[in-house]
């Protein structure tokens, strides 16, 4: 069991920025593909650096900028699939015997987005990258909350994007490109508790994806959510206290 506090958060997807946008989306699942909000969210980053962000990177950057951090803060960056569109395009180039784009290649590591963000924010704090299949979101929260032993504040940035069609038969992925940035703190903000879920009855095949569960906790008066994974006995529970 792990206790920590959430000082503030910011979530971004195409057309979705404010708490109202996200509450409406949780109810309706409707969103516009209009990406003006993401462009606006990136205004703080210089154009020459901004162009290096891929589509998912832009969403992640807009969420992090939305936190309006006023001091350097360690970052836990987490994504299940990473920038899989970019990886696929590089693989396709290799398959068709073309030279690879040096820029694409340099951005194709899992922590590239986190690296670009550290340059953009001139923040030399530590960065940890998490990639996990099952229980990705609670694993990221666990890592960030544990780092509160060393730092008074830690940012947890969670992002993912729908995988390209070619991979869709083989894996689950999010319905929309999204990023959620959480500023965790030792002593400021809403108290949260992360624990293993001890109710073995709650194996929830129909449970919403992790990021939707987290948004439900953040936006509704529901005070606990369970991150359920199919085919595992380990489920995590996040409660606001």
């Amino acid at each position, binding site marked *: 069991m792990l206790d920590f506090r959430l000082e503030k958060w910011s979530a971004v997807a195409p057309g979705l920025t404010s708490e109202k946008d996200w509450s409406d989306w949780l109810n309706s699942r409707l969103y516009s593909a209009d990406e003006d909000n993401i462009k606006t969210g990136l205004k703080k980053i210089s*154009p*020459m650096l901004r*162009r*290096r962000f891929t589509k998912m990177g832009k969403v992640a950057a807009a969420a992090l900028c939305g936190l309006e951090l006023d001091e350097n803060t360690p970052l836990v960056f987490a994504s299940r699939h990473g920038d899989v569109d970019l990886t696929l395009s590089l693989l396709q180039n290799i398959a068709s015997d073309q*030279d690879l784009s*040096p*820029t694409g290649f340099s951005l194709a590591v899992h922590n590239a987005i986190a690296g670009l963000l550290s340059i953009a924010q001139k923040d030399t704090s530590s960065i940890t990258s998490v990639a996990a299949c099952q229980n990705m979101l609670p694993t990221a929260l666990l890592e960030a909350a544990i780092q509160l032993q060393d730092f008074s504040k830690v940012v947890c940035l969670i992002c993912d994007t729908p995988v390209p069609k070619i991979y869709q038969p083989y894996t689950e992925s999010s319905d929309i490109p999204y990023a959620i940035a959480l500023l965790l703190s030792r002593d400021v903000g809403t108290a949260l508790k992360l624990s293993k879920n001890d109710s073995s009855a709650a194996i929830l095949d129909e449970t919403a994806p992790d990021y939707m569960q987290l948004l439900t906790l953040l936006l509704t008066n529901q005070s606990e959510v369970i991150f359920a994974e199919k085919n595992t006995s380990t489920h995590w529970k996040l409660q606001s206290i």
Partner: protein
Amino acid sequence: MSDLNTELKQMIIDALDLEDIDTSDIEDDAPLFIEGLGLDSIDALEIGLALQQRYGIKLKADSEETKAHFASINALAKLVQQHQTTNV
């Protein structure tokens, strides 16, 4: 402004995702790297690749000669012209 210069500017804009920049924003004799347009080393590699794909020009990544070719749009245009003349 010559057509080749405009063509090279457009090639750079496309290859480097310079979304907010138009060919008229790039000066023919201004530095491309650090000052002027403000490109960096990854951009240099990307331009090298674009030159190879488009004009069949192969450059050595770290030679002094390459540095001179990459000084400005005018210098790049000269390189492309030389290459085209020697290969005709």
